[in-house]
């Protein structure tokens, strides 16, 4: 029952991103690479929030788990860049599982608060162990360490291609996940937990699994961020980085596979252009978000799906 339109659309987006590389100015190559990495993070957030209905305010901890696993792995233990990219998702998934084991005993507002507290505790832990994490100042990963084989990942084209590769893999896995039987159960949990329980699904294990997958995505994005941009700092573990993926997902469309990327793309360039025009750029971002809530509360792709394209996954 694979909907060819959906598969075609996602492949077309990937092809366009690849085709755009030679046409983009260096400035935009860096931007789009960053957007693709952040979109992987937001896709992970969307698996928990958009599909399973878990409104977490603590995803920065899972992102940071991957970020620091990569950053400290490379700077303290001489891990290779490729090894760091493998370790990151493991660390993110592990952090999400541990937090989930406790936090998923709560729901709704309590879940938001508990996840926020865990993430803040994680952030303070990073600041406390400044000797190893270098705290606010952060770890700058040496250029020599940012290579896979002989490919220098600090150069524009390889960094774009690496970000693209991770993004493409994450996107296609995301598509497969939401089309899978388990994807249907995640949505069922979001839509009606009591009913799902009476169909024989254990809400705790379903939500824990979804959160773990979400953490794997966040950790993968964190590790990619460290390797591709060479910087690992405590500010990337702050509450702001828990809110960012939420905004991307809300803008692009919660519960849509392409929504997180679209949201990240638009939000990134909105901030970019607004901040070049005025120092009060947050005012413009705020106004845009208010317009979104008023006219498209389900986000861009969510609204599109509702009105025109029900096949959109």
């Amino acid at each position, binding site marked *: 029952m694979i909907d060819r339109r959906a598969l075609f659309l996602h492949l077309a987006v990937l092809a366009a991103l690849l085709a755009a590389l030679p046409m983009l100015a260096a400035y935009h190559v860096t931007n789009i690479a960053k957007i693709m990495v952040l979109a992987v993070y937001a896709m992970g957030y969307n698996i928990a929030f958009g599909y399973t209905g878990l409104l977490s305010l603590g995803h920065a901890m899972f992102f940071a788990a991957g970020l620091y696993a990569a950053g400290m792995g490379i700077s303290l233990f001489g891990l290779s860049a490729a090894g760091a990219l493998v370790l990151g998702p493991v660390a993110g998934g592990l952090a999400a599982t541990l937090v989930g084991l406790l936090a998923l005993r709560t729901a709704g507002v309590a879940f938001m608060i508990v996840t926020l507290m865990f993430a803040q505790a994680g952030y303070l832990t990073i600041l406390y162990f400044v000797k190893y994490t270098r705290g606010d100042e952060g770890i700058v990963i040496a250029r020599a360490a940012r290579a896979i084989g002989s490919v220098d990942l600090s150069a524009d084209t390889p960094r774009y291609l690496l970000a693209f590769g991770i993004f493409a893999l994450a996107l296609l896995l995301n598509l497969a996940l939401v089309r899978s039987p388990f994807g249907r159960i995640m949505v*069922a949990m979001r*839509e009606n937990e009591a*009913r799902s329980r*009476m169909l*024989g699904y254990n809400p705790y294990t379903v939500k824990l699994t979804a959160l773990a997958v979400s953490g794997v995505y966040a950790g993968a994005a964190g590790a990619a961020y460290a390797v591709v941009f060479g910087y690992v700092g405590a500010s990337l573990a702050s509450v702001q980085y828990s809110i960012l993926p939420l905004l991307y997902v809300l803008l692009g469309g919660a519960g849509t596979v392409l929504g997180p990327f679209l949201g990240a793309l638009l939000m990134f360039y909105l901030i970019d252009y607004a901040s070049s025009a005025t120092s009060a750029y947050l005012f413009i971002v705020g106004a845009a978000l208010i317009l979104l809530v008023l006219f498209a509360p389900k986000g861009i792709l969510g609204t599109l799906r509702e009105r025109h394209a029900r096949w959109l996954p």
Partner: protein
Amino acid sequence: MAAVILEARGLTRHFGGLKAVDGVDFDLRQGEIHALIGPNGAGKTTFVSLLSGRIEAQSGRISFDGRDITRLPAHARVRLGIAYTFQITQIYAALSVFDNVALAAQSRGSHPLGAAAMEALSRVGLEARKDQIAGTLSYGHQRLLEVAMGLALKPRLLILDEPTQGLSQGEIETFNGIVKSVVPEATVLLIEHNMDVVMELAEWITVLNFGQVLATGTPPAIRANPAVQSAYLGA
């Protein structure tokens, strides 16, 4: 007489001072249609919630097919084959009719999934509406979808909580046919206010009043029971 599939002994649940279910002994025989009746507030929904595991029992014991399930969580009881359809319709309003039933069939591990879901839909006559969003169905159709989800679970015990509430006469006749088709492979426990439905379907009736069993027996025996008449039938 057929084997007992579900047995409750001394089942009790109080809410503060309210004795919703108070020391109920109850036997359900394999393959029968058993109706649970009683006035409003008699504890019928609480009682079946204890059986399905939505509410935990304070004391007493439940066994299903010889196995003690008193402490088993609701989702695990569903996996054993106890399906419960809600009194207040609980469908996935935002999902398609097909997805609603597929979620039930998938839980049962049915394969191929699509065929199992469509079979359950066709039993309630909703197969033509499979792509419709469930929340846009008429109330009667939503009730039938709820029943289809119960059927797709391929339960050994199907608990129906006031299934005909709000159905038209024609829909009730469809419903009666569905319930008759479920037995004797499965067992049906039916909470019902519509006495015509009860008398047409039930082979055995248990009457609850103030959380206790007032009477239990065949439909003619219940109809003739003076205590039942004064408490409930109002005759």
